[in-house]
């Protein structure tokens, strides 16, 4: 008998990490292969399913950093350690770490866009010999929306971190301005050989990629992570289709040479 790929399985919530009022990380039980940048469909029966990026991977555990913005995520926030959520996945291609090994790496992330790249940042931050240096530019709307504070504290010791908020007064922790304004000032060994990753809201991806190209990055060295409405994760429901591309099957990670052609 054929397997029902839509049947989710129960996964226990092992830990809940509160970043902000509306953004929590749920650390869940999961045994199996998974890559940063992939996603799962999380669900609570009777409320619905939502596609959520994997924001962390450890032995037997995966993290989902969830923003409380919809019917499903509202209900997920009512769940605590010890209770379970239904999940199915992983779906999508995810980031290929090999692509960045031995390279100088620039990561530009906005808001919850840090989630899909967190695994990549952590890996190269913890394995300094495996890249030629990591530069992270992370933007948040305001100080109250800063995510992964513990990670940032650790990353600051390991890699070049620029944290910024859209408006307000700068502090020792963060600067002020859009992420794009910090791209021209990046001090790199060789722009033409470096790789870049961009993840965040659509407009932020568009402007950041353009700023990277303007700063001398070859388009084929830029990678973007997309997000769309997705009801299946298997190239069937049609919601994430952009012309001849299914974000769920062919992405959500795209090389910019292809990503820039994805006009909805």
């Amino acid at each position, binding site marked *: 008998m*054929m*397997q*029902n*790929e*839509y*049947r*989710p399985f129960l996964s226990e919530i092992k830990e809940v990490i509160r970043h902000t009022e509306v953004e929590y990380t749920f650390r869940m039980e999961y045994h199996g292969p998974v890559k940063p940048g992939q996603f799962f469909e999380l*669900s*609570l*029966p*009777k*409320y*619905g*399913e*939502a596609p959520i990026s994997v924001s962390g991977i450890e032995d037997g555990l995966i993290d989902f950093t969830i*923003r409380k*913005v*919809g*019917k*499903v*995520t509202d209900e997920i926030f009512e769940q605590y350690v010890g209770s379970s959520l*239904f999940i199915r996945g992983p779906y999508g291609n995810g980031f290929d770490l090999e692509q960045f090994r031995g390279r100088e790496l620039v990561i530009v992330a906005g808001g919850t866009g840090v989630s899909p790249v967190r695994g990549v940042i952590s890996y190269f931050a913890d394995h300094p010999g495996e890249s030629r240096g990591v530069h992270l530019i992370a933007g948040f709307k305001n100080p109250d929306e800063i995510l992964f504070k513990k990670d940032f504290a650790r990353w600051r010791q390991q890699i070049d971190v620029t944290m910024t908020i859209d408006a307000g007064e700068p502090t020792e922790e963060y600067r002020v301005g859009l992420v794009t304004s910090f791209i021209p000032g990046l001090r790199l060994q060789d722009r033409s050989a470096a790789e870049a990753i961009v993840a965040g*809201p*659509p407009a932020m991806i568009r402007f950041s990629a353009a700023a990277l190209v303007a700063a001398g990055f070859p388009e084929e060295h830029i990678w973007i992570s997309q*997000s*769309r*409405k997705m*009801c*299946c994760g*298997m*190239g*069937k*429901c*049609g*919601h994430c*289709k952009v*012309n*001849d591309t*299914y974000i769920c*099957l062919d992405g959500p990670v795209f090389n910019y040479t292809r990503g820039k*052609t994805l*006009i*909805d």
Partner: protein
Amino acid sequence: MGYQVSPAGADAVLKELSAHYRVWAPRRFAGGGAFSDTDCVRYGEIQSVTEIVFDEKSRFSFKEALTPPSQTMFYFTESQMTEPEFPEKPALIFLRSCDLHAVRRLDQMYLRSGSPDYYYARLRENARFVLMGCRECFDSCFCADMGTNISDNYDLSIEPSGGSYLLDCRVPEWDALLAAQAEKTAEVVPSHVTQTRTRVSIPADLDISVMKSSIWDEYSKRCINCGRCNFSCPTCTCFTVQDLFYSDNAKTGERRRVMASCMVDGFTDMAGGGSYRKDNGQRMRFKVLHKVLDFRQRSGFQMCVGCGRCDDVCPEYISFSHLINRLGDAMKEVSGRDAK
């Protein structure tokens, strides 16, 4: 083998087959039309061959037999998640050549793109198809130009002829049944149309650059994003997954999927407010290019089968076939040459 069968004989055959199949065909729903005192011809289960409507095109397609407009995926009772029961009998579907070609499009989407779809596979498995021959086309048909006017992968063919029915059987196990009811055996070749009144021509150089053409702007105002074109299309496959709980017992509920339309508001809405293609003209572009460009780029064959239902049902009289014929000029426009 070919047979000539009387209406009573055809009903006897249908009765035998009904023991093993749920029989779906285009039939008349009296009073079921959009306006008072009008009927609707659409798909439903039948008991008699005389219920089949041969001389009108069905407003909706056969796809409802394989992809129900609303389909339960799971029932939830507290911590239990159970799958619904599937019908014991597979479907036997009466359909025209264009629609039989559409089955291949549904198979491509549900069985061959990504991992196979469990729910579609269960209804598709062992389904049989009865080709309804077309002696002539309807006004909006353009099957010949889409290459879907002829089908030879049917299990049985049928068409009315002089008070009887002509049938061609490709399933050896059914031959004895048909022979027992036949007035006579005959050489039967299902009728097909060779030329339609509506003609379409898809430009050979069509590519995605056509999205920048100004032709789409006209539809920003004309189209009212009702989605009828999608719901009547035999090749539209999109769905949305919804959960709900029952109002008289909130501990129980279900997950279902419902037909979705890329023309209707909400299709791309994400939690938190993100959304794409807010303009109806751009939704029209998205749909048209899926049907005649990007499905082909992924699958190697065109999605649109030329049934013309979208033209028949549009309340704004937008013609899909007319739009296809404008693509040549649109390509000239975007490639910098003068439009005619």
